[in-house]
């Protein structure tokens, strides 16, 4: 067993877990934060993207023990109460989802993309940046529209959310 202390969505947590616990398993099973999804177990699909110390990573290939001392942000940490995060709101507005399985990872990746590229990001860049997130409903068109819209109306909102 290994003791892991970290902050998840701003709250400090400490848990004893098996050494082999993946970060995504820690979030979903130990903490009950099931918004982060497991698609492929191999870092290919992006459903498990969370932010570790402000950077988008795939939580299915990182151990919980490796997040010791880190700040983790998951999809559950984006909204302020009933107020959706602007990227979440844009996904709803532009129908950037069908079945919703890839959505948490898409949104967490998008928040990082907008933070890095700012409001002027173009569609080609968004599509390249989303290469690590797979949508099996093939809904990329509206996802890209949602990310672009969120970026345009943001102007620095992503930093505030971190």
């Amino acid at each position: 067993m290994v003791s892991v202390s970290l902050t998840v969505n701003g709250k400090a947590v400490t848990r004893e877990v098996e050494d082999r616990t993946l970060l995504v398993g820690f979030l979903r099973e130990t903490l009950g934060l099931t918004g982060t999804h497991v698609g492929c177990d191999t870092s290919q699909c992006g459903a498990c993207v969370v932010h570790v110390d402000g950077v988008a990573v795939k939580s299915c290939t990182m151990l919980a023990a490796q997040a010791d001392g880190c700040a983790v942000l998951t999809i559950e940490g984006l909204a302020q109460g009933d107020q959706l995060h602007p990227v979440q709101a844009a996904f709803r507005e532009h129908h950037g989802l069908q079945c919703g399985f890839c959505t948490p990872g898409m949104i967490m990746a998008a928040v990082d993309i907008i933070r890095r590229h700012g409001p002027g990001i173009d569609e080609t860049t968004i599509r390249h940046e989303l290469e690590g997130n797979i949508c099996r409903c093939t809904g990329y068109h509206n996802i890209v529209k949602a990310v672009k819209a969120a970026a345009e109306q943001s102007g620095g909102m992503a930093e505030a959310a971190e």
Partner: protein
Amino acid sequence: MKPAAFAYLAPTTLAEALEMIDRIGDDGKILAGGQSLVPAMNFRLARPGTLVDINGVAGLSGISGDSARGISIGALTRHAAFHTPPFSGPLADLLAKVVRNIAHYPIRQRGTFGGSLSHADPASEWCLVTATLGATLHIASLTGTREVAAADFFRGTFTTALQPSEILVRIDLPPLGAGWGTGFYEFSRRKGDFALAMALTALRIEGGTIREARLGVGGVADRALRLAKTEAFLVGQPAHAETFAAAAAMAQDSIDVSEDIHAGADYRRDLLGTVIRRALAEAAA
């Protein structure tokens, strides 16, 4: 639980890490970025009894030097460090081009340069860079540090000169200074997938004539290959399309290309010619 049970160790110094892997031997694995090892463990293709996580070991990451003098890369340097290299010139341009082809952005935040070499996937971009440019690898163990040329390091698919008691700590890339042009072309079915074929080259051209050449290919055999004969052919030739086509044909004839579920040998041999021609044309442009 996806991976089989293992013990997790997190040393904070190189000496401590070396002592651990020496004691554990064959049953241990070093965890760097984990972007290949952890998926293999999730599918239980790899079942190490102990993981020695070197992410907390001080002094293993960072890039120093420049294009004119060559650079030193700490083994734990993340792929993402090459998105905007901390130096300029042809070597920086080449590495910044290559890194965009390694998997996806979140993976590049975790995966490491040294981890990629130690894993030795035949389609690894960094393996191709080190093999083609003639890198020197610095390998530490309890008995000291040894240097191994990239040409001697890669032994085959997922196989290197590393012993279980050793850690790759630093990689030196030789200079690629003013006057060199670089080219890289990779073909994969989807962006971020493993290369079905890729070529990397650097040319020094004076007055339209190639004076020096580096050329290597990856994803087509059990390891990245530096094409010394084709390099020798290129020197003294005019830097134009006919030369590049002849060089591509020469490489196609000399390599026994691999065949797998993703591509048959004929198709891969055809791709090989295409990626070489495109990389050479880019370097000459």
